């Protein structure tokens, strides 16, 4: 046994030495690599071109952007001498990964995301400001506002979206301007349901319900250059009046109690006359002959949907910030690229120049744009995380007419006003409570 052990130890040592030797080589090689880039040149002719290996930009984006960029990016790569690598991501997963990967030194140079995460990623220090410069004048104000936080702009907005009202064009000519007329149109058409709007039927959804409390003076956070988390307007007179109006619309059968899936089914099967949702649903809506119009007014005021904006950001952990900025300002923001992205993913363009083209070609896109122009951007402050739950729940109570005294908490909600007050209280408590 002893000799065995001895033999083994010798064997082990031999192996270890070989391994260490190899390892040493590898380490030296990698540490030497960067030095070669600084080889001095004596001649004046194009001194820089021969020196470094091509720079590489890593972009995290969702599949549709990757598809749109794919045929165009080659031209930029060869003109600029950079490698652009687009990593395809689930759009919703980008934020989490940026927060984790960036600080660990594994993040991208550029990434895309929705504007409502701006506050959070700025507070976490993972995004760098972006001075849009002269191209800002070509971007709709709502886009720039959406990406502004604490006095700086943090991304280039490339697409906006807001909900509007689909109608079944075989049964009705368009969307009337008031809810009373909507009701009358439904009665005339005789459909099973009138307006299918997500956010009922057990599925809380503050996003789709926003026009129902914010069109007549209600708001989540007061907007004054930036969103103020200490001023919650969910229970002001305007919010309560709108919510009470919604209550009457539910009671008289105008607004059905549907979640997203049910509202889609109802519209596709011709069982509802209207469907309140966004431009992403155009393909699904085309199961019937559809048109799109503005959401009816509240007390004479246009409906204010939430506007969501998507944009591209420069990572604070990028070691090539100027290059990353240049990619956005010099290439990504150009009309050609934006048009290719619109072709792949028909969300509304955020740039005026492309929108002018789209508007002329696509009247439905123009309707969504008109709806968005009445809307407000979703608050981009991190406190918004406290809002979705309470507001979605309050609207769900109204939409499903779930009034009464709760057996477990003993709290009574007998009206739309009670529901809004409760939501406002929950939001204020959550923000105060940390």
């Amino acid at each position, binding site marked *: 046994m002893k000799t065995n052990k001895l033999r083994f130890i010798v064997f082990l040592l031999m192996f270890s030495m070989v391994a260490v030797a190899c390892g040493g080589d590898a380490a030296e090689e990698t540490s030497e690599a960067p030095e070669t880039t600084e080889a001095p040149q004596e001649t004046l002719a194009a001194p820089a071109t021969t020196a470094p290996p091509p720079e590489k930009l890593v972009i995290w984006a969702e599949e549709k952007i990757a598809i749109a960029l794919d045929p165009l990016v080659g031209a930029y790569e060869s003109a600029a001498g950079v490698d652009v690598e687009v990593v395809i991501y689930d*759009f919703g997963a980008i934020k989490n990964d940026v927060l*984790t990967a960036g600080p660990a030194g594994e993040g991208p140079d550029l990434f895309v995301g929705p504007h409502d995460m701006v506050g959070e990623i700025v507070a976490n220090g993972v995004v760098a400001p972006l001075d849009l410069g002269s191209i800002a004048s070509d971007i709709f104000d709502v886009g720039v506002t959406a990406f502004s936080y604490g006095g700086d702009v943090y991304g280039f907005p490339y697409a906006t979206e807001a909900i509007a009202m689909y109608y079944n064009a075989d049964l009705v000519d368009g969307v009337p301007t008031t809810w009373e007329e909507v009701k009358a149109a439904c009665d005339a058409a005789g459909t099973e349901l009138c307006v299918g709007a997500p956010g009922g039927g057990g599925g809380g959804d503050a996003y789709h319900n926003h026009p129902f409390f914010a069109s007549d003076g209600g708001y989540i956070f007061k907007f004054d250059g930036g969103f103020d988390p200490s001023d919650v307007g969910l229970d002001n007179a305007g919010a309560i009046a709108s919510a009470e109006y919604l209550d009457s619309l539910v009671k008289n059968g105008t607004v059905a109690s549907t979640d997203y*899936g049910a509202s*889609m089914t109802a519209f596709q*099967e011709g069982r509802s006359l209207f469907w309140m949702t966004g431009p*992403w649903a155009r393909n699904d809506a085309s199961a019937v002959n559809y048109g799109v119009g503005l959401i009816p007014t509240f007390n004479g005021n246009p409906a204010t949907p939430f506007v969501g904006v998507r944009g591209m950001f420069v990572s604070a952990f990028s070691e090539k910030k100027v290059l990353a900025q240049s990619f956005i300002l010099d290439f990504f923001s150009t009309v050609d690229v934006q048009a290719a992205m619109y072709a792949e993913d028909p969300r509304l363009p955020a740039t005026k120049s492309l929108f002018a083209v789209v508007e002329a070609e696509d009247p439905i896109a123009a309707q969504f744009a008109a709806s968005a122009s009445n809307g407000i951007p979703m608050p981009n402050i991190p406190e918004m995380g406290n809002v979705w739950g309470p507001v979605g729940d309050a609207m769900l109570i109204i939409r499903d007419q779930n009034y009464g005294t709760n057996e477990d908490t003993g709290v009574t909600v007998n009206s739309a006003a009670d529901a809004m007050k409760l939501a406002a209280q929950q939001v204020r408590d959550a923000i105060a409570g940390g």
Partner: protein
Amino acid sequence: MVIYKFTNWFREFGWRHLVGLIFVTISLYPILYVITNSFADFANLQNSKLIPDTFTTKHYESLTGDPLIPYFKWLFNTYKIAGIAGFLNVLLGTFAAYAFARLKFKGRRVGLITLVLVQMFPSFLAFVAIYLLFFQIGDVAPLIGLGTHIGLIMVYLGGSIGFNSWLIKGFMDTIPTSLDEAAKVDGATDFQIFYKIVAPLSRPIIVVLFVITFIGIYSDYILAAIFLKDANLYTVALGINIVFMDDFANEWGSIAAASVIAATPIAVLFIFFQKQITGGLTAGSIKG
């Protein structure tokens, strides 16, 4: 007489068929729904019709030919990852189970229970730790870092070894020790006993656990999403989530078609290897 015969038949077999058929309906209905929707022009998993108005194969066509949706690569990756990880998982579990079942040592029960208990940690937040760990592994050994199938398989190996060991151990306990004692007398080593007697006799439970582990990995999306960033390396579940699902706008037709194609070989295997999967504890072990 006929009635008597029928009641007798019913008491022996008939009720079994009745229960069986009810659950056949329950099992198949939602699946049929997915299948018919994969052929529907406007697929919607929440529509109210089982049979769509118009039939189309466009969703299946969308899965072929588009270089940006390399669906069949996803399919291959899924089976590869689930197959390898499932196999190794069960293999390592069988090793551990053998020690717990056959080798007498102190803390045997405590050790096994610890393995099972540790496995119960809610992995809900674990992604950050796994992320950080694999960033570092990727620096040191890029071959098994993030973005690689090997790294993902390694993480899956940690996934259910505790439970698997316990189950296999329970099964091994039912194999009479007289068999290995006889072999020991003949001079067999532990390893020989393991791979000539105990492991083969444990095959039924090993097959069942392989299936369970395979399916668990096959439908996993969360861990795969941490690891795989290249569309050519996706698994089916991940590809569906990334490419066909987007907030509200989900391409239900393609999702349904992708699931049907992915599930079909598994269903066929279930049917052909049904005996191995659910049946087949050879009476051998008991008869000795």
